[in-house]
């Protein structure tokens, strides 16, 4: 077997050195009834050629986004990833290293995580960011739990325009961890969240752009939350939007929980992605996840270490701020490299291209009879109402090789009032020809 270096003579010599008569002797502690006598009923070893053939044939049965006009977003966005990103993250020194617990031989990982933390803080307009969490949805629930620790209150008010998966993750944790969630109904339009804040409200969670793509100013909500001693959590599922719209920090957010997939990370059928988490300096000791800090070495030179680990499970055990151990290291590296390549001007240009593509798309499909744009303001994704159930339209267009967007009913199958709602996204990869195909398809289907 190509991955196993020991030869049979090695094995014999090693058993002799150990003084064991056979390999079975090393498994003698396994109770008799649990010892398997031979290989399980699974395929036997295969060479690269056979494995590649078998797995490639599964991949070939899927419709890759890049092969069709593609307008799906709803929390995962298809962007161009510069070639240098994937090359660099595959360097073995990054790919095959562990969590940087031995800082003298992990300065590479530690330094890029410090750069990542800085980039996330700058993008979100916050003071401090951690070294990533699993994904946006888990970052969101970690924010809610952190708000509970800070305020000593147990109820989170969730906007109806929060991504439904994020809401559902909060509801799951709420049940088992023991906090309350007051989740609003999804209504593409306004809601008065401040009116729901009471003395037991730890935080209000909103999303920007919201699940239906609407770009909102939460400054006033932030102020009203703060007057009530409640924290404002702003969720961002399209991190690229922060190259174009006002940062959550400027709007008064106390915690930002975001999905960073759009920078450097492929769609990957939904994972792995990278959770971003930023807050104010004063809350840093309540943060979940790993943090990299600057320090000096014995020779007085600047260097980096994991720090404030007294918050973490491997030190604090049952008193930790979170049970999280692994994060999204390599995905955060991809994020860091992509954003470093873009820089200030590239990020703003890329965000502008996304918005321009979405504006063009909106103008074209708004003009299709029966289609009504829901949004007042949007970034690269918006919602439209169709004269027919959106899921039907999406399925029929998929048959014609167009992936038109996400019907809201995928998330809310029992809400009839959302049955005609379709989420549509455009990015820098959306071409005029793609838009022509979607517009044409919609005209044909809705006429």
């Amino acid at each position, binding site marked *: 077997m190509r991955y196993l270096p020991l030869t049979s003579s090695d094995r014999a010599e090693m058993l002799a*050195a150990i003084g064991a008569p056979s390999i079975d002797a090393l498994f003698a502690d396994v109770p008799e009834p649990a*010892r398997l006598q031979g290989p399980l009923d699974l395929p036997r070893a295969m060479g690269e050629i056979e494995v590649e053939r078998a797995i490639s044939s599964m991949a070939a049965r899927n419709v890759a986004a890049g092969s069709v006009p593609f307008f799906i977003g709803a929390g995962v966005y298809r962007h161009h990833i510069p070639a240098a990103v994937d090359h660099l993250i595959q360097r073995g020194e990054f790919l095959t290293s562990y969590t940087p617990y031995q800082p003298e031989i992990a300065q590479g990982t530690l330094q890029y995580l410090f750069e990542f933390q800085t980039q996330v803080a700058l993008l979100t307009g916050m003071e401090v960011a951690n070294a990533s969490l699993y994904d946006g949805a888990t970052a969101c629930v970690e924010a809610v739990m952190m708000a509970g620790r800070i305020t000593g209150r147990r109820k989170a008010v969730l906007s109806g325009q929060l991504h439904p998966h994020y809401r559902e993750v909060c509801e799951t944790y709420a049940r088992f961890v023991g906090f309350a969630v007051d989740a609003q109904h999804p209504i593409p339009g306004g809601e008065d969240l401040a009116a729901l804040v009471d003395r037991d409200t730890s935080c209000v969670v909103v999303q920007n752009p919201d699940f239906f793509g609407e770009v909102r100013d939460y400054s006033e909500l932030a102020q009203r939350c703060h007057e009530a001693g409640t924290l404002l959590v702003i969720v961002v599922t399209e991190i690229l939007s922060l190259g174009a719209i006002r940062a959550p920090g400027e709007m008064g957010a106390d915690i930002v929980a975001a999905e960073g997939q759009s920078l450097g990370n492929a769609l990957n059928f*939904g994972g792995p992605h990278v959770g971003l988490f930023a807050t104010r300096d004063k809350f840093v000791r309540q943060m979940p996840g790993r943090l990299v800090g600057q320090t000096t070495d014995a020779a007085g030179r600047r260097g980096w270490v994991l720090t404030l680990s007294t918050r973490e499970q491997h030190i604090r055990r049952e008193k930790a701020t979170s049970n999280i151990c692994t994060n999204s290291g390599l995905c955060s590296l991809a994020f860091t490299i992509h954003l470093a390549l873009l820089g200030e001007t590239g990020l703003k240009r890329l965000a502008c291209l996304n918005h321009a593509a979405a504006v063009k798309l909106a103008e074209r499909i708004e003009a299709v009879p029966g289609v009504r744009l829901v949004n007042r303001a949007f970034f690269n994704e918006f919602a439209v109402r169709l004269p027919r159930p959106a899921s039907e339209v999406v399925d029929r267009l998929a048959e014609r090789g167009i992936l038109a967007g996400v019907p809201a009913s995928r998330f809310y199958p029992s809400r009839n009032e959302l049955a005609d709602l379709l989420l549509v996204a455009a990015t820098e990869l959306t071409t005029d020809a793609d838009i022509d195909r979607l517009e044409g398809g919609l005209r044909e289907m809705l006429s």
Partner: protein
Amino acid sequence: MNDWSRAVSARRGDDLAPPIDSVTGNRGLQIEEALIFEQDSPGHCGVDLPEPAPFRSRLGGLERQGPIGLPGISEPQIVRHFTRLSQKNYAIDTGLYPLGSCTMKHNPRLNEKLARLPGFADIHPLQPVKTVPGALALIDTLAHWLKTLTGLPAIALSPAAGAHGELCGIMAIRAALEARGDRRARVLVPESAHGTNPATAAACGYAVDPIPADETGRVDRAALEAKLGTDVAALMLTNPNTCGLFEREMIDIAAAVHAAGAFFYCDGANFNAIVGRVRPADLGIDCMHLNLHKTFSTPHGGGGPGSGPVALAASLAPYAPLPWIVHGSDGLELIEHKSGPAEHSLGRLKGFHGQMGMFVRALAYMMSHGSDGLRQVAEDAVLNANYLRARLADDLSLPFPGVCMHEVLFDDRFLKDTGVTTLDFAKALIDEGYHPMTMYFPLIVHGAMLIEPTETESKALLDWFISVMKRLAAVARAGDAARFRSAPEFTPRHRLDETAAARKPVLRWRPEPARREAAD
């Protein structure tokens, strides 16, 4: 001493000429690399993007004003920056990485190639299900392998890492208890457990009740049984445990746990020791997470992403988190809501469908080995660890007698009165070209050194490593503590001041202090 270790020790001799002062701060391949923020060349960009055609903004007047503060750098500088950073890392690709309990084994590159196929990497989780039958088939095939290997009938694939899998498992246990109207307050966790175990139990609202180890390094069964009662929700036990030992009484422990009406959670972080040789279900467990980034070789990536599927007994399967993939009349179906067969699901634990990129890698790994090869994986991992144990037994100190599984635990008695600590010893190992073992864990032995070589190391490499360990132990006994305390010397940085880092945290770059520092 062999030739090789003589060469290494000669490097430290006083007969070497002292180095001249560095002009650049760089020494050979040790290059000082500034932060990207200190390499800003405003206006530069590493990506060429077209100018957008004129359009009417629809941002509702919420345009971002002013600079964000991101540096501008061209592509060649970026490639060099991150390449240089990579060279400051130790990695499996560069050497033995014997971190106990972390399973740093070779990461096959075929797996990387396959995970990047557009049919997996470039598909969206919300595409119409009919456009992704191959993705569902891959997930279902992976599930079949994991169910067969564990012997458990169901598998929850969405957890993003081992700790997330633990959370999933304990939530499922609590859901099952609640479904039978049974509120319980305590979770039993051995003192040798990973920190994630007590953290997980506490996060799910349980009081953590620690169980001591017996004199053989295994859970103290009498103490365990004394603590079992009708308010115990679960036992969380790692097997093989974190001392690298198989819990011989697993089957009896399972019976006792079940007799008390509790569930048996097994931490599967060390499944690599028994994969293909033991099905955990045959030991009586109800629930176990699998770290795909340990047993099944998906890369650790400097700390993630991981993937932590949870195998579930029939009693827990109805509570598995969303989404579910089930065999329907029309092929595989994706269930994304609490309805139909998933009516009692505990709900969603993360966005979308799990770590697909890791699923592809793990399946490629399992198919490459096959059921015969996976059994060989466990055998070679255990053989390598026992070889280290046997060859180092007289030089280091073993806290527990007998054979070990995939990792071998030493304590610091062999360093008694030398003035050298476990930490010093680990740092000295770095200077000899090796990543240290896991230090000070598990907590139940003093100055723990937990060594896990994995099955992907050759005998020749292990022999080198053994000679270095023996030599270091001899140097320590000979009284050269200073050498240990100053280690590591041949690294991009010497020991770092972690206390200062925590006292006054600097967690991001800021323009002003950095400029001052540059001027210094």
